[in-house]
């Protein structure tokens, strides 16, 4: 058992380093996904042409933009694996699926967190949001825990698209309903943190609890289901 | 009866959609049943 845990540790470290290195050298997040989410945020401002409304709905927009961008990152994360048959090679190598799952989830979480920080900064500037110090703490806690859940669930469903080749188009249909609790929980918690619509910052913590439950459930399920999911 | 169109409409809608589904299942079943051997029909 301990040797298996060591293998999982080694594989997940190798995978997360590899994924982040690929991102570092290809800069897809920086050059494509981040501008994409910026465009989303600006388009929202066009669609909801009213300063009062924008301030009120800013938390929801940040999280919607995060979810849409996440679809792109997840697809990219698995496109890297299938481009030259690396996923096949990983499977043939009998690489511990749990290690792959943890590694890819961690890499996804790091990328998502970077993106969310950027979106937060955009919201502060474009939507004129002014949280308190407590509000900032709550916002960061929300981001951290929501991202853990999103990383697990994104990797889990992304694996299905990769195992069944050429079926990436199914990803949004499967993934978006599954992350609805994150959208609800994170948006409410961020509203509390931003004080949107007169919300108190203490109202946010139960939602952060919901996000933690979500992360725990999908972390556990992903650990079990990811292996069979990436099989052909 | 008040709102007869809504009420009868929902009954009709329910029954028609279920019936259409049932008929399509039975028809497809007959069509495929004709071209498969009885070994593939363990319910017989």
């Amino acid at each position, binding site marked *: 058992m301990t040797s298996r845990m060591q*293998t999982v540790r*080694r*594989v997940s*470290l*190798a*995978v997360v*380093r*590899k994924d982040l*290195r*690929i991102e570092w*050298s*290809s800069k897809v997040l920086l050059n494509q996904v981040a501008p994409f989410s910026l465009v989303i945020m600006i388009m929202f401002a066009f669609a909801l042409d009213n300063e009062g409304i924008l301030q009120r709905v800013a938390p929801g927009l940040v999280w919607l933009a995060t979810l849409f961008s996440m679809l792109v990152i997840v697809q990219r994360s698995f496109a*890297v694996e299938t*481009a*030259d*048959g*690396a996923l*096949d*090679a*990983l*499977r*043939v*190598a*009998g*690489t511990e699926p749990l*290690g792959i799952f943890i590694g890819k989830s961690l890499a996804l979480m790091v990328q998502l967190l970077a993106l969310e920080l950027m979106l937060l900064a955009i919201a502060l500037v474009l939507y004129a949001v002014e949280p308190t110090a407590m509000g900032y703490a709550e916002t960061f806690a929300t981001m951290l825990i929501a991202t853990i859940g999103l990383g697990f669930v994104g990797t889990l469903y992304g694996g299905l698209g990769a195992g069944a080749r050429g079926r990436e188009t199914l990803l949004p249909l499967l993934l978006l309903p599954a992350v609805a609790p994150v959208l609800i929980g994170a948006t409410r918690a961020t509203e509390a943190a931003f004080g949107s619509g007169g919300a108190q910052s203490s109202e946010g913590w139960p939602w952060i609890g919901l996000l933690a439950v979500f992360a725990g459930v999908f972390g556990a399920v992903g650990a079990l289901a990811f*292996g069979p999911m990436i*099989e*052909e | 009866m008040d709102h007869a169109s809504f009420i009868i409409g929902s009954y009709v809608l329910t029954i028609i959609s279920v019936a259409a589904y049932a008929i399509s299942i039975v028809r497809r079943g007959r069509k495929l049943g004709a071209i498969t051997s009885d070994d593939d029909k363990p319910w017989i």
Partner: protein
Amino acid sequence: METVVELSGVVAVLSNFPALAGIDLVVHRGEIVLLHGPNGAGKTSVLRVCAGLLPIERGEGSVMGVNLRTHRESVREQVGLLGHSNGLYLELTVTQNVSFWASTVGATEQEVALAMQRMKIDGRLAHVKASQLSAGQRRRCALASLIVRRASLWLLDEPHAGLDTAGQDELDAILQSAVSSGATVVLASHETQRSRLLATRVVKVDGGLISGSES
């Protein structure tokens, strides 16, 4: 003689197309078997079935005593597969690629260096991104990744393709030495001249079946 691969009447399906239509194949330890046949004969699928990647639809199969129908996942630790694609990450450098594969199996830095040296991708090439390599250099990189895996059954799909003569010689030497230390090799190729010299047995594959064999 110990049996490494045993397939009987194996049918394998690629999206409703029977790539294998009932293959019977037995491979013993220490053999170098060449699968030879036209394009689309099913050579690649035989290798993928043996690697536990492609599920068996009908028939029975086992590799090193592992039943491929029920436990195809557990055969993989002992096989090394080089497919059509190289399994490289194009955005990473040669060293990063080989090191990644090494770290997933727990091989040492030393083994990585040795493998890269053998495939002659250590010097200038070591820090070039895989996307900028030529086809032959990528093949060398993939072979180096395969060497660090220390497999006991080598499954190679067109391994000589894209390699220059020196690279082909090196590959042959590597396979010979692997076999002499107890490994078994199955390779698929339609370029037979070179492979025939290497192989201890040639098996003809056609139409998803074994259509003949020669020694």
